[in-house]
């Protein structure tokens, strides 16, 4: 039992990663990874939303009529995100200002719907909760890795602090403006997939 749970939680971190193996949630990986800070905020929000909506759907799973299950999932995810946003606006206004751009992105994130459909509808709440946490973290890791390289090479900063010494610039080093533009998010994700697959031979397609 313990081993099974461990697989549910840790599987999505590498072998079954939602972004680099299932190729889900790419759109938001592109939108929020030009800086580390928004990437971290987005990662935490997605972890919370996937875990909570997984639990709710899992609790309701025996009552949901099959023909409208996608609609029910969408309603649960959308209302959850809106309620969290309302609570943040009332009690943590600074965080909610940062989140403003992501609220829509969380609702439409394919990982959330994907996990509800593929896992929560057929598993008990505790397993679903772990699955949500695992997939959220798996998504967050990729986001943070991509954002790390984009912010470091694109702006020369990490979390807004300059880390590339000033002497480098005097020697002729330039920030690569291309890294900030959206295409480089996809190319960075592709590089991560490349490294990941070359280390995990069983994932390679014939």
């Amino acid at each position, binding site marked *: 039992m313990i081993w099974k749970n461990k697989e549910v939680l840790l599987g999505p971190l590498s072998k079954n990663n939602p972004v680099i193996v299932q190729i889900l949630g790419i759109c938001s990986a592109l*939108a*929020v990874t*030009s*800086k580390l800070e*928004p990437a971290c905020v987005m990662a935490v929000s997605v972890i919370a939303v996937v875990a909570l909506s997984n639990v709710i759907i899992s609790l309701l799973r025996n*009552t*949901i*009529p*099959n*023909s*409208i299950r996608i*609609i*029910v999932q969408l*309603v649960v995810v959308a*209302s959850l995100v*809106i*309620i969290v946003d*309302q*609570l943040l*606006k*009332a*009690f943590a*206004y*600074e965080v909610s*200002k940062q989140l*403003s*751009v992501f609220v829509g992105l969380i609702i439409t994130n394919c990982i959330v719907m994907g996990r509800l459909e593929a896992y929560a509808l057929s598993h008990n709440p505790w397993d679903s909760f772990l699955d949500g946490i695992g997939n959220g973290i798996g998504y967050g890791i990729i986001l943070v890795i991509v954002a790390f390289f*984009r*912010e470091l090479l*694109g*702006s020369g900063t990490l979390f807004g602090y300059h880390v590339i010494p000033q002497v480098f610039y005097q020697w002729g080093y330039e920030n690569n*403006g291309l890294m*900030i*533009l959206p295409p480089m998010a996809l190319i960075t994700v592709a590089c991560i997939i490349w490294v990941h697959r070359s280390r995990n031979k069983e994932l390679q397609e014939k």
Partner: protein
Amino acid sequence: MNKQGNTYTILYSAVMVVVVAAILAIASVSLRPLQQENIRVDKMMQILSSVHIASTAHDAVSLYDKYITDSYVVDAAGNTTKADAFGIDVAAEVKRDAAERRLPVFVCTLDNGDVKYILPLYGAGLWGPIWGYISVDADGRTLYGSYFAHQGETPGLGAEIGSAAFQEQFAGKQLFVDGEFKPVAVMKKGQKPLDGADYVDAISGGTITSKGVQSMISDCLLPYESFLKSLDK
């Protein structure tokens, strides 16, 4: 009851909609006073930020009361009326003709006795609204500071208008060139405005947002021309 039947499905969705609507309505109504208060405090922080006074949610109200010594409303002809400048919805005002707008002015008196005038801005970026405050020296010609914010500009690109590096450029810029009113332009690095106006560097990769800032500044400051001229005696 047959869980795949039509009756069950319709009942299920009806109950779901009512329950969700009730939860959302309760959340919205019960949290509104707290949210409004947060928005009010945040507006004070934004106004203070345009005169280089950093505040937190805790001390914003007391700092605002201390430094913002007066506020009033002017019109495009330069006439001043006493009114609640803080409560004016700038987003609604910019939609009206320049001649009919009610233009809020916040007067800030700094620790050293210097007086600055703070003017609100509102415009459109790439994805949504952008807004800000710009502060002018007592002579009505020289910019003292600026604050810009946005709803959903792209992080790392357009969203950089919210960064200190972009906002600090505005300090010391001139609004009048040879006695003619020419609001500060936002130009691509290396370019200069043809009409000789003072300018700041745009955000590379955030062209549309930068252009939005530029048109917001000229659109919102032009109606203040008479007021600013009246300051310079």
